């Protein structure tokens, strides 16, 4: 079934010594899209470098998203709603944060694909033609190729169909739309080698399959009902239903017991049970993007939309159609997921479009109602009998329209301010204000990576924590052990063990993994707070979570009072482990002072035996060490 083109690419310069089958471990949509645009433009003799294509891909696709949002909201309500929704999504911070120029990540095109699929689906449900269903399936294929969030789609569309069945709105149109979408969409989605056979074996996809079966049954029952009289039909119905239900439950139980159906994977399970990740899988809990959302984060990213969204829901409920049910479901579900796991971006990103659409519906309905009531002093006399004109009607209406305009203006100002403050800084170059207000630039990361690029052998292997993996591969062009893809927890755990153990044990691990250089981040001189010491506890947790790391226990690194301290009171295990030595060797100004933790370091005379310092950047942020060879003669 897997006919993917890029399955043969094997990257041996990442995840040394395991390597990585690129085709099988990423979603190809983003790369294929960039390559396609690059080739088309060059064929038209508009010569653009591929790097520029990549940099500007996200803004390009967010413009496309705006257009699709307009069409989607137009289908749901009216062209007016479409316009307002499009304007809102053009500037909403929740979406801008992930589509700035230079952010080359799956979400840039995934949101576009998702909204396109929704638009096609709504059209398919409204018209019930095979054409729109097939278009929806193609859009779904594009979505699957670009982002792992497609699982949300393949669950919300069946949920919509199920709701339609329950509310008695199931019709021939829905039947055609869903059956074609499911069959064609699933076959297409299995062409992506990263997805493989998941659509028929994992629990996340079983809902869609179940609803597909239910659709067939429902349609068949309708057909039979139209051909029999009532009594015959009732008896037949009851008998058949009970047998089928029993058989279905039995099969499912047998399959689950035999292990043919894989249970919910950790990442998705933690959405249903929010405390699961915290307790069981440290690597999921450590990614700061997987943290719950406080109300001010909602307000920060969405401002006015947080209270226009319920008004939109109200409008949809008062005018219930098949499409409105879909958008209501989408809104309520995405707001739950955004609340559970969405503070940095991922799920806030899925929430932003639906917020814009529903708010667009609300604003446009309110404005169109009240605009009609402004002025028309002459017509009032005629309408007196019908509308019951009320004194001050046009004044109230004018006031309301003014207030609404003020809201929209404030929304624009807010979005502009948020984007300029929070989402406009590059993450590889840091800046700070000096005492006199002048701006100081810390370009240490690039300095270190270019040093690695020019001063180390081509086949040197660099060990660092996984956050810096992609950067080292791209800018320093060296082989690394672990990177941001985080597909192999055991390998990351090994690196964590090396960082957290004493020098001798760490040296064994480093020799085993053929490490030549070690790279660590130190923020104590500049006050840069996301350095490796602040991430250290995660290294310990992940390091201790696999078999080979059972000697690493988190509470060893705390003081007897249970605190994490790096000064004299710190735990001896912490003060003697490898990363402590690397980070603090002759570190800090005055020597021995850590400006992030605001303490004097507890082990100032750390002498590293197995590593020697290779390079430290200007502001001591990045420190590179060379692993020494084994001594010539036994010690």
């Amino acid at each position, binding site marked *: 079934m897997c006919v993917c083109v890029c399955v043969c690419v094997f990257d041996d310069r990442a995840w040394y010594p395991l390597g990585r089958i690129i085709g099988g471990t990423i979603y190809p949509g983003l790369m294929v899209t960039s390559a396609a645009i690059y080739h088309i433009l060059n064929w038209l003799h508009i010569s653009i470098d591929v790097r520029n294509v990549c940099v500007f891909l996200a803004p390009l696709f967010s413009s496309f998203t705006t257009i699709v949002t307009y069409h989607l909201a137009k289908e749901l309500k009216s062209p007016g709603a479409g316009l307002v929704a499009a304007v809102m999504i053009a500037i909403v911070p929740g979406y801008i944060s992930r589509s700035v120029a230079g952010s080359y990540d799956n979400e840039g095109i995934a949101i576009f694909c998702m909204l396109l699929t929704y638009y096609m689906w709504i059209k398919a449900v409204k018209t019930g033609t095979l054409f729109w269903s097939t278009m929806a399936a193609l859009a779904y294929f594009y979505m699957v190729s670009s982002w792992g969030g497609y699982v949300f789609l393949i669950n919300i569309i069946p949920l919509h169909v199920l709701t339609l069945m329950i509310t008695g709105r199931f019709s021939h149109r829905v039947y055609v739309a869903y059956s074609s979408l499911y069959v064609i969409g699933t076959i297409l989605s299995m062409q992506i080698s990263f997805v493989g056979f998941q659509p028929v074996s994992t629990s996340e996809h079983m809902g869609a399959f179940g609803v597909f079966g239910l659709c067939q049954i429902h349609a068949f029952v309708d057909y039979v009902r139209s051909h029999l009289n009532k009594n015959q039909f009732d008896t037949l119905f009851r008998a058949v239903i009970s047998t089928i239900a029993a058989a279905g439950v039995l099969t499912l139980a047998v399959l689950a017991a035999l292990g043919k159906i894989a249970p919910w994977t950790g990442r998705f399970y933690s959405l249903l*049970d929010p405390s699961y990740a915290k307790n069981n899988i440290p690597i999921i809990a450590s990614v700061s993007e997987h943290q719950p959302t406080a109300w001010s*984060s909602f*307000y920060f990213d969405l401002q006015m939309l947080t209270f226009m969204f319920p008004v939109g*829901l109200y409008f949809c409920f008062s005018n219930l159609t098949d499409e409105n049910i879909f958008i209501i479901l989408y809104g309520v579900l995405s707001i739950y997921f955004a609340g559970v796991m969405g503070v940095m971006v991922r799920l806030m990103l899925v929430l932003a479009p639906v917020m814009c659409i529903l708010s667009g519906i609300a604003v446009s309905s309110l404005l169109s109602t*009240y605009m009609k009531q402004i002025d028309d002093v002459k017509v009032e006399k005629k309408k007196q009998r019908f509308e019951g004109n009320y004194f001050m009607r046009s004044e109230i209406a004018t006031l*309301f329209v003014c207030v609404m305009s003020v809201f929209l203006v404030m929304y624009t100002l807010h979005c502009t301010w948020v984007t300029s403050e929070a989402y406009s800084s590059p993450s590889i170059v840091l800046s700070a204000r000096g005492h006199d207000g002048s701006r100081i630039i810390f370009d240490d990361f690039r300095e270190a990576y270019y040093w690695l690029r020019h001063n180390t052998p081509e086949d040197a292997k660099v060990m660092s924590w996984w956050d810096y993996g992609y950067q080292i591969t791209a800018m320093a062009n060296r082989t690394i052990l672990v990177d941001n893809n985080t597909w192999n927890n055991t390998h990351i755990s090994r690196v964590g063990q090396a960082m957290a153990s004493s020098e001798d044990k760490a040296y064994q691990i480093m020799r085993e993994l053929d490490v030549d250089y070690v790279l660590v981040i130190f923020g104590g001189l500049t006050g840069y707070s996301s350095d490796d010491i602040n991430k250290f506890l995660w290294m310990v947790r992940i390091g201790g979570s696999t078999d080979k790391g059972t000697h690493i226990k988190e509470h060893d690194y705390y003081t*007897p009072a*249970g605190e994490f301290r790096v000064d004299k009171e710190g735990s001896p295990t912490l003060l003697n482990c490898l990363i402590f030595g690397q980070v603090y060797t002759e570190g800090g100004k005055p020597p021995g002072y850590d400006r992030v933790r605001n303490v004097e370091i507890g082990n100032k005379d750390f002498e590293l035996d197995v590593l020697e310092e290779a390079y430290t950047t200007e502001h001591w942020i990045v420190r590179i060490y060379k692993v020494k060879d084994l001594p010539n003669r036994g010690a």
Partner: protein
Amino acid sequence: MIVFREIILLLFALSALLIAVQCKKELSLSERVQQLSDAGTKKPVLRFNGDKFRQYVKGTPRNYSTIVMFTALAPSRQCGICRHAHDEFQLVANSWRYSQGYSNRLFFALVDFDEGPDVFQALRLNSAPVFMHFPAKGKPKKVDTLDIQRVGFAAENIARWVAERTDIQIRVFRPPNYSGLLALIVLLALVVGLLYLRKNNLDFLYNKTIWALGALAFTFAMTSGQMWNHIRGPPFLQKTQQGNIAYIHGSSQAQFIVETYIVALLNAAVVLGMILMTEAASKRDDVRKRRIYAIIGLGLVAFFFSLSLSIFRSKAHGYPYSFLLK
């Protein structure tokens, strides 16, 4: 002569009185063991204050060992690790209580810092939690304090240490955690029961308004950050050092429970305002009522929007915009 006899009688009486008083204060061994085992069958972990500690754990003679956990469980002490240790300790004590070899040779006790600070001082303890074993004879040695740094406080490790010190084997039994499953079953039962009871009158399920209200309530709950409260467990509100009550947390990374309720109410008020305005414009009712609806709606919308904006301003430092209210 007679006076001498009187004096001797008096002395006898006094000493008898003194002895009687003494006996009341110092219980005999069997009485202590009896009291301990009675209390122990009801509550496997006994809570001691200073006096009880001295009487039962330090009082002589003893033919039983006591394992004591010194802890600080009051919320103001903010000792999260004490709570975990307490759970594990409770597990061991329960396992002992219901084990085959349960006897009067071993008791589990707890001394909280707020109830027995003198004990902490006497034993020169300045951190918590600390597990100590007080043997039947003699004073506790260095190995009679559990080395949490090295071994941890998992129930199995505590049991192993107890076995090392007292030769009493305790098999730790962790009850399987069915709470999630149970909650789900109860919920399902409730729903089925409700449907069954009202099976003749299922119209309420089809009532759009109920679903609408449900969806709106859910939205207000989520956007005001209830999931954050559920996962992070913040305090209800905070009393600042000056004695004022802070309803709103100062930074935008955290929130109080009362703050989330306020925000939910604000959002609900604005939405209510907008709904009132819509109803006012589209209904065909009495003119005056509609006018009043519209005015109230407009007022609600403007006022509560400005209120929520100013609350947001106080949290996100540097935010320059405001509307009506500062």
